[in-house]
């Protein structure tokens, strides 16, 4: 009798042990993005598609994990974004939020994430504060930031002879940060800023500002704005013969959908810095082909590529820890293992939460140079990973100081 009971218990233990090994680790990922407004092309449904590819490539079943994906539209409102993030964490058991364009929303989500001890991977927002004064042990900033944009473009242009600058700046924190950082780089490399003008957000007509830029006789017109403002500046610049007159535009924040919206005729010659271009190598091209199955006719932006890369790396860290429960632990693990994927190559996540990888300086092709749809960029220079981002010593990130 006792023997039988013992056998039953042993068998039961075996069975439950086996069951435990079988029951997969649940992970839920939320893509919080702009689906219906200004940045929907650079992020939005394309970011969701990228996250889906990351899950597929990671192969959760092979790691005994079960990964779910949800997505929502924050409508570019910080309160909507924060409220969705809270609800996801509290009610829907989301473990990680990725993307989040618009720095106001990203900063709000970063606060919520820290409070709830989850994980936040920023790819869409640009503010370098996210790894600076407002850095968090639960947040990692992927893809790009204002410092990278300013330094990549500013330095390269001054070194190739663009000594005098005029800035057309979007009159809000993001624009001012871009202008300030770029000015510092230009001056440090022996260039000079001859003038600037602050333009309200969502201005239709830039001709007045372009005339001012023209009159300044600066060699380079730096566009410290984004999206529709950048497109309108460049489109009207072509009309006013800015480039024909010998001046050049430097787009401080340009995505490939912007170039597509301008057309190469208007955009040709534009210089900008990006960490990803779909046509870089065989790996990025193969990935783009798969992405385009979900987004026919479009080309992935660096933000969407960043969502893929960030999600993949996150899943690797969760697999190593065998749990997604403790956000700080997952982020710490993500900082420990090097990043590696076909889109950004090999890299790492620094203590301040900044992902480090090379960035590239591109010039937009002329219509004659472009051989097929999406053949938009010529690679002008590669900025090595250790120079592409702000050194941690200049961060003012409390996390870094604490660890010293």
């Amino acid at each position, binding site marked *: 009798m006792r023997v039988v009971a013992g056998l039953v218990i042993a068998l039961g233990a075996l069975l439950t042990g086996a069951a435990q090994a079988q029951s997969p680790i649940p992970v839920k990922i939320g893509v919080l993005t702009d689906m219906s407004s200004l940045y929907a092309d650079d992020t939005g449904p394309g970011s969701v598609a990228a996250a889906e590819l990351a899950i597929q490539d990671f192969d959760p079943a092979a790691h005994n994990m079960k990964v779910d994906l949800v997505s929502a539209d924050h409508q570019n409102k910080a309160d909507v974004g924060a409220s969705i993030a809270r609800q996801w964490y509290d009610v829907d058991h989301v473990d990680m939020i990725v993307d989040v364009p618009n720095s106001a929303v990203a900063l709000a989500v970063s606060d919520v994430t820290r409070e709830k001890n989850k994980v936040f991977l920023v790819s869409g927002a640009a503010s370098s504060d996210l790894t600076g004064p407002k850095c968090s042990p639960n947040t990692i900033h992927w893809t790009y930031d204002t410092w990278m944009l300013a330094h990549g473009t500013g330095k390269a242009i001054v070194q190739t002879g663009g000594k005098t600058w005029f800035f057309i700046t979007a009159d809000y924190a993001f624009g001012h940060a871009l202008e300030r950082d770029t000015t510092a780089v230009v001056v440090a490399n022996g260039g000079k800023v001859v003038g600037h003008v602050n*333009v309200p957000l969502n201005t239709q007509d830039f001709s007045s500002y372009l005339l001012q830029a023209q009159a300044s006789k600066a060699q380079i017109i730096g566009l410290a704005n984004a999206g529709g403002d950048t497109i309108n500046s460049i489109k009207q610049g072509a009309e006013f013969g800015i480039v024909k007159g010998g001046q050049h535009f430097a787009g401080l924040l340009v995505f490939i959908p912007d170039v597509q919206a301008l057309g190469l005729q208007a955009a040709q010659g534009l210089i900008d810095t990006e960490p990803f271009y779909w046509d870089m190598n065989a790996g990025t091209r193969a990935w783009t082909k798969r992405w385009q199955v979900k987004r026919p006719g479009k080309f992935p932006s660096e933000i969407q590529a960043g969502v893929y890369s960030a999600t993949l790396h996150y899943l690797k860290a969760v697999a190593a820890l065998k749990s997604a429960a403790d956000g700080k632990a997952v982020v710490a693990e993500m900082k420990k293992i090097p990043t590696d994927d076909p889109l950004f190559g090999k890299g790492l996540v620094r203590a301040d939460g900044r992902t480090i990888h090379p960035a590239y300086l591109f010039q937009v092709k002329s219509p004659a140079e472009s051989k097929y749809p999406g053949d938009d960029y010529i690679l002008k220079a590669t900025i090595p990973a250790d120079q592409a981002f702000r050194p941690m010593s200049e961060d003012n990130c409390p996390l870094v100081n604490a660890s010293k």
Partner: protein
Amino acid sequence: MFEIFGIPSQALFGQLLIGLINGSFYALLSLGLAVIFGMLNIINFAHGAQYMMGAFAAYLLLQYLGLNYWVALIIVPVLIGATGIVVERLFLQYVRKLDHVYGLILTFGLALMIEGFFRNYFGSSGEPYQVPNLLLGGQNLGFMYLPTYRAWVIVFSAIVCFATWFAIERTRLGSYLRAATENPALVRAFGINVPRMVMLTYGFGVALAALAGVMAAPIYNVSPQMGSDIIIVVFAVVVIGGMGSILGAILTGFALGIIEGLTKVFFPEASNTVIFVIMAIVLLVRPAGLFGRTA
């Protein structure tokens, strides 16, 4: 060369001219709004969306049918005007007699729907559209470089504005229209089909918006939000001019373009706000706008 507040006078002339060109867009758009308000008593919040549809229609005609700018300039207003007529039949005829708010909310809802549709099909960044070959290049006027296309914009919109004003204020058809707004029952008694006239008027107002859209396509980003960016300014123009006043809308449109142009030189950060400052001042001093009749 003399200077005004530290700005060389020649540069200032350039800025004034630029302001006048922007003003011609405001004039065209606010003209349509004023016509619709005057005749239908509806504040057409969908005007911006219809302007955007005009620009997109021009892009689509070029992309898929190979029809160039000049053809678009004629076909697009007709097409989009026709959609306006459908909208009037389906929705607006039911809210015309109600308080302004209902028409405003209804057209606001329509604007959201139109914008949403375009964003889903074309994305948010926009589509390319080039300046037509005939109008490429420009003239160096000495004080500024004037692109030929901008010169065309100002001349053409001035003609359209004048023609519309003339048709409404100086022709028999216009007098019927004006009479129909004053006293529809009486005009109907004269055997004139007032509902049809109202319907066509809305179509015409929408066609004006679409025309402005085609003219904007080569110089402004053709994107789904191009209309919502401009609608509130145009709205202000109509109010400053005096609701429903055709002449007021046209003149205020041009004048505000110039004032905005000057603001862009002296206080560029405020160039989107100056229009509201002016609106507040005008309404405090002249309750019914510059050219409006007091109710």
